């Protein structure tokens, strides 16, 4: 309790004095500022874009270091931070010229500077994650290990569940599906001292999940690897280990699917039982056995089965009665 009170004070101080001084916050940005920022960013795109990398403004620049960069106005502008000037996060002074001054690297602003209140809530969860528990891993894990601040779009703005799944799973699979990347973060293996722990294959770990690949396309890792939170709260950042992760199929595959409070949380308020289907917001993206139901069709089918059973029983009963009567008549 005392720890969090202390944190709270720091946050208040940051919000109270720190941020205006840095002019940093996550308050919505007005349209004129957005246009101004986008104009200013064009100076950076001269090099930091596919076109710039292919044809730099000055001939003798080594662009090879930027080959993995996915920076592009069409990607950056719609992202969460696309309303901002690059130099609100990257130093105001060190990137005006090229070559960039070495000091720029160490002056990149962290998430806390602008998102103090959110970080306050997320940090305890982040610190309880599997990634924060392993020596050698936790030192390297930061907010931008998963969040690419140039690209990511938060769920409620991205809207389309398929895109949300692709974006958020990319964040996890970047390591968990690439041995090269995994090795950069992995601790030393227990059985292989001096060598990095080998990356377990993601499909093998989940071989209890039929058609795992279909699941990676339609649900996120965090659906099962984070504890459930109330609908109006931010998604939990506590990545769970194998004991606590969700293994029950029915948590998704049932009429009362938890996906309504997770991947589809931003859509449930629009639930309209389209064409008579329950959970039709889920159906917009996935047919989910057990969760996608049509109560009317189900009732008709159950009624048909019962009617057939009763019909057959009745027929049989009449046959028995009639044959007994015939036997009686014959014996008389």
């Amino acid at each position, binding site marked *: 309790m005392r720890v969090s009170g202390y944190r709270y004070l720091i946050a208040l101080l940051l919000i109270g004095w720190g941020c205006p001084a840095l002019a940093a916050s996550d308050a919505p940005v007005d349209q004129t500022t957005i246009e101004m920022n986008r104009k200013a960013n064009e100076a950076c795109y001269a090099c930091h874009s596919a076109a710039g990398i292919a044809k730099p403004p000055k001939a003798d620049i080594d662009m090879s270091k930027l080959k993995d960069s996915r920076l592009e106005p069409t990607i950056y502008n719609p992202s969460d931070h696309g309303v901002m000037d690059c130099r609100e996060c990257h130093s105001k002074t060190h990137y005006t010229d090229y070559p960039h001054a070495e000091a720029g690297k160490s002056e990149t602003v962290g998430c806390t500077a602008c998102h103090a209140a959110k970080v306050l809530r997320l940090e305890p969860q982040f610190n309880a994650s599997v990634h924060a528990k392993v020596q050698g891993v936790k030192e390297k894990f930061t907010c931008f290990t998963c969040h690419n601040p140039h690209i990511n779009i938060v769920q409620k703005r991205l809207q389309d569940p398929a895109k949300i799944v692709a974006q958020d799973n990319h964040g996890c699979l970047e390591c968990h599906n690439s041995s090269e990347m995994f090795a950069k973060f992995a601790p030393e293996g227990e059985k292989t001292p001096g060598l990095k722990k080998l990356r377990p294959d993601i499909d093998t770990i989940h071989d209890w999940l039929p058609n795992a690949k279909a699941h990676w396309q339609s649900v996120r890792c965090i659906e099962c690897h984070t504890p459930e939170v109330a609908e109006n709260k931010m998604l939990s950042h506590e990545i769970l280990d194998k004991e606590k992760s969700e293994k029950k199929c029915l948590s998704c595959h049932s009429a009362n699917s938890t996906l309504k409070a997770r991947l589809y949380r931003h859509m449930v308020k629009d639930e309209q039982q389209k064409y008579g289907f329950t959970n039709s917001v889920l159906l917009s993206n996935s047919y989910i056995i057990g969760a996608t139901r049509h109560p009317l069709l189900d009732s008709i089918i159950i009624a048909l089965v019962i009617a057939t059973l009763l019909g057959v029983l009745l027929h049989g009963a009449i046959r028995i009665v009639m044959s007994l009567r*015939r036997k009686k008549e014959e014996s008389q």
Partner: protein
Amino acid sequence: MSERVYLLPLWIRLWHWTNALLIITLTITGVSLHFADPKLPLVEFSLAARIHDLAGLALVAAYGFFVIANIVSGNWWQYVPKPPGILDRCMKQARWYLWGIFKGEPHPYPVTLEVNFNAMQALIYWFIMYLMMPTLLITGLIFMFPQFAPDRVFDMDGLLPVAVLHYLTGTVIVLFMIAHMYLGTTGHTVTTMFKTMITGWHEH
């Protein structure tokens, strides 16, 4: 004393009981999947999915065998209702099920080696085996390999029509199966027809 005729070769009997067993298995697991609910005492979901997948593939194989063996042996001819007077014969058969059977009348179209199925049976079996079964099997296979499903249909997931068709054809086959099992008791005695399907010998 009743007449005996060797009606059903071994392959039909083996196929029939395999088919029956698989369909019952698929029905129980299919219901467990569709009506999955923590409060219903059904087969556990992941077990049901696993069994349903295996039994489904086995049924595809059994059906493939059925079709090929029918072509090779010429047995497929039994499933073709033969004119003239198909409708009349169906009506007569239906009248017997709804009336004659209660009065103890004899079967209107007794089984012979040449004509195993009466016109109504031929029609219904044809509908079930050559229309419903392929639809059920194909939708089941698409369900198993959803990459072959259409991407989107209207503004819904493309798997929806596949799943609904699978559910509906599955239902038709279950309804057929209930009636079929009951009609199996309408032979000479209640058990004669079941015995025929086991031994191959038909008694009049």
